[in-house]
């Protein structure tokens, strides 16, 4: 991905034309929404655990610097080496230096959104290190040389047939089959060899516990366990917001996460890793490194309202329920994090110059807010970012970068017109006479009429109609 700004409008138009893609998403999201509803059918329980989950995240944010220090101290005491990175470049350099020290040639990776944010695979490959995704969805996307289109189900945009063709084309020993069990078995055979021979395993972190220095990882496949147990070195990468205060904070967050994400009461595996291999233990990595990444998060944290973005537990429920995401899919956002959470997170992390269009990828319908298990006010933040994009300021990088002189003049004119009864009367009378003659292709109006009918003006104003009925102007 280059440094130029992305074009969501263009990418989403293309996605809307792709009937196959729309079908794949529609089916998947409908299924996820109804299955999730069953998991939270007990409204009192949902309200209780949701309120608890939100309080756990808010408490962690209220003590964030202290908890990160405590996490570092406890991890270090347990033998986990902690590294800090202000930028993704710095995080990549830290990972590379560990790899070079152990002369690593092959890395197996569990799914990690932060590593997507770092573009870690491409970076490692540039330095001669093979970095293999081991989550089946990520593996499929990597074979396809594409990006994940969902944070929980990276290959949700593809159907079985497409994956069958991909495997046949890219895996040497593959026979063409559309049998999911056989395709899965093929991936198992290929990846098991890699787990057994990899030099380093990389994982993300769903939650890090300050109290005990424990890294929590939830997963269904076992690839997370493989990546963090078999290779001699394990590197975990996490955004700095992923810390929680106490071990007892873990169960409610995991319950919200797994039920919201895939409608499972829990995932097959919940890993709690607290140290590298100890004296006498027969397996597990000899070294564990934890890389804590900022990448703009400390800036987000400084703003009282935007800070709420950092509550996110990365469950993906907001995208599953978003009418925009479910129509256009994840790739249209051209970002590691798509959907509603991506639309507020990406502009804050990468700047409004590059990502200022994303907060507009929203109908403000509030579906994401209703579903968010930790009650993030996504739509309010979306509105705030729209405003930041056109007004100079320093809360978000690139504030004011989407300002348009023509738009500003129109709003100014609108405000002046509405502030003066005389100007208002004149303007409405003029629109009643001439408004319908204005062509749909006028600048600014065109943005609206591209996808909607041009509004028709009545030939008499409301004031005139009221006067006829004997209602006087105030």
């Amino acid at each position, binding site marked *: 991905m280059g440094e130029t700004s992305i074009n969501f409008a263009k990418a989403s138009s293309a996605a809307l034309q792709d009937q196959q893609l729309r079908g794949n998403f529609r089916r998947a999201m409908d299924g996820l929404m109804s299955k999730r509803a069953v998991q939270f059918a007990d409204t009192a329980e949902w309200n209780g655990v949701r309120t608890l989950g939100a309080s756990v995240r808010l408490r962690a944010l209220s003590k964030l610097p202290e908890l990160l220090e405590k996490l570092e101290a406890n991890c270090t005491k347990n033998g986990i080496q902690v590294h800090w990175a202000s930028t993704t470049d710095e995080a990549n350099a830290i990972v590379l230096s560990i790899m070079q020290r152990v002369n690593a040639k092959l890395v197996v990776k569990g799914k990690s959104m932060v590593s997507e944010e770092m573009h870690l695979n491409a970076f490692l490959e540039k330095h001669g290190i093979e970095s293999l995704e081991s989550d089946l969805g990520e593996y499929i996307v990597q074979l396809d040389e594409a990006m994940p289109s969902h944070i929980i189900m990276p*290959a949700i945009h593809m159907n079985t047939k497409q*994956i069958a063709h991909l495997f046949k084309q890219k895996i040497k020993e593959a026979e063409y089959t559309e049998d999911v069990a056989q395709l899965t078995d093929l991936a198992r055979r290929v990846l098991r060899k890699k787990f057994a021979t990899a030099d380093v395993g990389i994982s993300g972190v769903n939650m890090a516990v300050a109290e005990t*220095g424990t890294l929590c990882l939830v997963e269904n496949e076992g690839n997370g366990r493989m990546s963090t147990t078999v290779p001699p070195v394990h590197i975990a990468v996490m955004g700095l917001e992923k810390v929680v205060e106490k071990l007892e904070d873990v169960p409610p967050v995991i319950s919200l996460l797994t039920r919201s994400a895939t409608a499972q009461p829990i995932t097959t595996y919940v890993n709690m890793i607290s*140290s590298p291999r100890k004296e006498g233990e027969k397996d597990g990595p000899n070294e564990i490194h934890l890389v804590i990444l*900022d990448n703009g998060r400390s800036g987000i944290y400084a703003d009282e309202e935007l800070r709420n973005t950092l509550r996110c537990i990365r469950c993906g429920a907001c995208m599953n329920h978003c009418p925009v995401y479910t129509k256009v899919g994840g790739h249209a956002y051209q970002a590691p994090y798509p959907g509603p959470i991506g639309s507020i997170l990406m502009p804050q992390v990468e700047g409004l110059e590059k990502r200022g269009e994303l907060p507009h990828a929203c109908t403000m319908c509030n579906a994401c807010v209703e579903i968010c298990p930790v009650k993030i006010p996504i739509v309010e933040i979306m509105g705030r970012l729209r405003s930041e994009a056109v007004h100079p300021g320093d809360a978000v990088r690139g504030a004011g970068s989407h300002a348009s002189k023509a738009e500003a003049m129109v709003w100014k004119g609108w405000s002046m017109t509405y502030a003066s009864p005389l100007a208002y009367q004149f303007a409405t009378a003029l629109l009643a006479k001439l408004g319908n003659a204005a062509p749909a292709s006028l600048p600014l109006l065109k943005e609206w009429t591209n996808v909607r009918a041009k509004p028709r003006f009545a030939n008499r104003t409301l004031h005139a109609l009221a006067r006829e009925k004997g209602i006087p102007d105030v």
Partner: protein
Amino acid sequence: MSESRNAILGKLRAGRDAHPLTPPESDFAVLRNKRWDGAERLERIKRMMEAVHTEFLETTEADWPADVQAFLTAQGTRNLLFGPATEAGGRLSSEWAASGMAGGPELIPYADRVETFKERLFDGIDAGITTTLGAIADTGSLIVWPTPEEPRLMSLVPHMHLALLRADALYDTFWQAMTENRWADGMPTNALLISGPSKTADIEQTLAYGVHGPKRLVVVIVR
């Protein structure tokens, strides 16, 4: 890299101090009050785990080594990885040796560091057996804490994982298990919840089992 550490923490502290946040109290009542009665717990665990393809073998304290041997023999399992230094491992090796059952699986001890037999572990082991610290009724999960005697990969690499579950070691929720047993006072290298065999739905939402870890999970309920 401590420069970044100090810069990040300094920025966070300044941001927080300028706009402090008072979080609401965390009320754990929703987890504290989640209870099932004794008989219901095990039924619920079985129901939830069976829904994700877990198998169950019911046995008794006296008979479990023989019942496991008979089960694996009937399955055609060639061998079983076990921890020879555990109490359960001791019973397995002595009782299987004494049983004189012909054609049963071979017992393979996990007695050395993984580096010495990684190849065989990945390519020649059919099943592994571990103990558990109990199970959780809320989610249908086994609690597994690997130890030097029962290493981590025993429950992950073999195609079948057998897990011994004492029928009196059941908890209502994950939260209760960790708070009642004061886990926070000393976490092991790796603590695990296991709720079924390895699975994925990454190909068009179609469930497939055994993508990376065990294809079968057999819970041996010991009463």
